[in-house]
């Protein structure tokens, strides 16, 4: 059974006296362990789709079965619980808390999982998650002491904290240069490959979309194409070809 089963999803906003049809009967299945990229110009409905996919919003109609559970009609609090346990978010602007150490930023999701861990356990897990994204030495740095790529890696570590089956990344490379973009995509590919995590990346850059094994295009609130990508780019290989930046030589 597919991890995500979406059928006839519609979402309409009322802006002034106009009805904006953000999603028109979208249907889609995503299997566990896929690396899906979703592309489309702004206004195509991909952001709305991502919000519903991420359980931040509810559809007007249609069903959304996530991990075997219909989440399209859950209350706000129940959605919060689902988000906490099932979905790891990565945002374009990183969304790290300012003046807060990387460790504390990474710990955040565990504050809201019903006291499953003691503070000491939380910290241990956060340190481990930071190590997994190559930032073991930066645990006590504040976001303003980290580069953009490092900040995004902290955000990925945070997304991994409650060990979710899905990582949902909204334009994760939008604020990054080419090299760090590839680095971030490499981490995603590694997570998908090594841990079997389902990765869903929303982007408007086609080069980024090509890292996925499946590319879905949105336009005017509908899926216009949904194609497997058997020639997906491999970030790890590309990184080897790139010259080592001066900043990392020292």
């Amino acid at each position, binding site marked *: 059974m597919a991890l995500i089963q979406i059928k006839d999803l519609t979402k309409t906003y009322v802006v002034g006296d106009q009805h904006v049809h953000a999603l028109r009967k979208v249907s889609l299945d995503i299997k566990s362990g896929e690396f899906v990229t979703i592309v489309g110009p702004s206004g195509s409905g991909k952001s709305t789709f991502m919000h519903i996919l991420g359980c*931040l919003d509810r559809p007007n109609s249609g069903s959304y079965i996530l991990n075997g559970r219909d989440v399209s009609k859950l209350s706000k*609090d129940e959605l*919060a619980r689902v*988000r906490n346990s099932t979905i790891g978010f990565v945002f374009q602007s990183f969304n790290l808390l300012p003046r807060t150490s990387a460790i504390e930023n990474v710990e*955040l999701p565990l504050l*809201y999982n019903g006291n499953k861990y003691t503070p000491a356990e939380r910290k241990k897990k956060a340190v481990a998650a930071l190590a997994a994204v190559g930032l073991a030495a930066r645990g006590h740095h504040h976001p303003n002491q980290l580069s953009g790529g490092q900040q995004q890696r902290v955000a990925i570590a945070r997304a991994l904290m409650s060990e979710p089956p899905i990582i949902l990344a909204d334009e994760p490379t939008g604020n990054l240069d080419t090299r760090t973009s590839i680095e971030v995509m490499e981490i995603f590919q590694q997570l998908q490959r090594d841990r079997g995590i389902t990765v869903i990346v929303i982007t408007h850059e086609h080069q980024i979309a090509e890292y996925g094994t499946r590319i879905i295009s949105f336009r005017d609130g509908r899926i216009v194409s949904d194609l497997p990508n058997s020639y997906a780019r491999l970030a790890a290989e590309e990184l080897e070809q790139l010259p080592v930046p001066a900043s990392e030589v020292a």
Partner: protein
Amino acid sequence: MTLSETVHLATRTLRRNALRSALTLVGITIGVGAVVTMVAVGNGARASIEDQVVAAGMNVITVVAGNYKMKGEDGGGGVVDHNASLETGKKGSGARPLFVRHPEDDPMEKHDHPTARQRLGDSAAGLGAAATLTRADADAIRQGVSGIQYVSAGVHESARVLYGDRRWFTRLHGGETDLQRIRRSWTFKYGRFFSDREFNNTALVTVLGTVAHEKLFGRETDPTGREVRIWNQPFTVVGVIASTNWATTGAVGDDQFDAVYVPLTTVHRLLNLSKLNSITVTSRSAGETTKVSRAITELLRKRHGIGEAAPDDFVVQTQASLALGKGVSPQVARAITGNAPGLEQLTLEQLSHTLERASRTMTVLLASVAGVSLLVGGIGIMNIMLLSVTERTKEIGLRMALGARSRDVMLQFLTEAVTLSLIGGVIGVLLALAASGGVKQVLRWSAVVSPEAVVLAVVVAAAVGVFFGIYPARQAAQLDPIDALRYE
């Protein structure tokens, strides 16, 4: 997140904006500090008034055996109004009417204890001399009347006290150990009062009033441990009582200081008596003496089996009602004569009521002024919390995306508000303690910071935090995570 972690998070967040947080809690600090200080000063004023009143003996109630004014005059209401006591007071030499009522107590008259023994014996010679009070009555008052502070049963005699070749004819009071606590104006020049143990053992010990001490030993001699003879028995002197109060002076003939004190049990044993002349009682509050004396009257009437129509076989006097006839302080006297339209209508009890009421009004007034500053402080907190919610919209959106429920967000912001106000409150209490200390030192006012006021102030501070924090916290909790995340 457990509560302690929530509080920890709140304090950390507040510390990140240390200056802003400090400025915000200053409002609460001033409010709480002002309230606690004002209440302390008000309480101090009230306590010192109450103290003066108590020191003047205004909470003392005396129950006297027998009822002289019975015969046909008035119905015997039990509580004597001050007019009546003024009349009786004229007969004596400034002594309490108790003794005035017993003509044989005149120190100029030659008589001896057998007369007294007869009077106190069970043979009642007419209503006026009725010896009706017993120690059981005293115990019943102690246990059965509310608002009672101390009770001391008493027997009053006259006696010759001998020390070597000196002799002094003076009053002898048989009392209980609580008598020293009833007489607030007493201070021990030497030694102590007789103890419970000496009382229970009917010990031959005596405490001298200053006048008796001076006459027998001279002013500067410490008589403790010396032996005096009373009724041909050797009594050991254990202490000397002097007066601290302007209202009572130790002159010859003074009932309290030209006197010797002996345990009641000893007097009963030596003179083979079983009855009492009087029971001296204090009420906890000077304002309650009338109420308490009514209760005593009722209790004793019941105990003595006196029927509806029959007169009391005792007299209950409040000290307040007697005090007008005595040499009270000129200030009090002036206050009475200056303010009272009808002097005969005003008792010191009423005066103390008035003073108490005035100081209470003052306290309420000052506390409400201080309360306004609490309100302003609360609004300050609300203002800052609203600002904080706006500033941290993105953080709220993020926390929600990561799984925070509305109530988690609400709790976080509410905790911040309450933490602010509580810290403000605690600092305010500390400032108030310092301020009332300063008031005591510099202005020589008495200020009493009561634990209740401190607890109340802290609770009020927390309540202010909740009250003014709930709206901003609600605003935060009701944010939509998508909009909040998009907020720039």
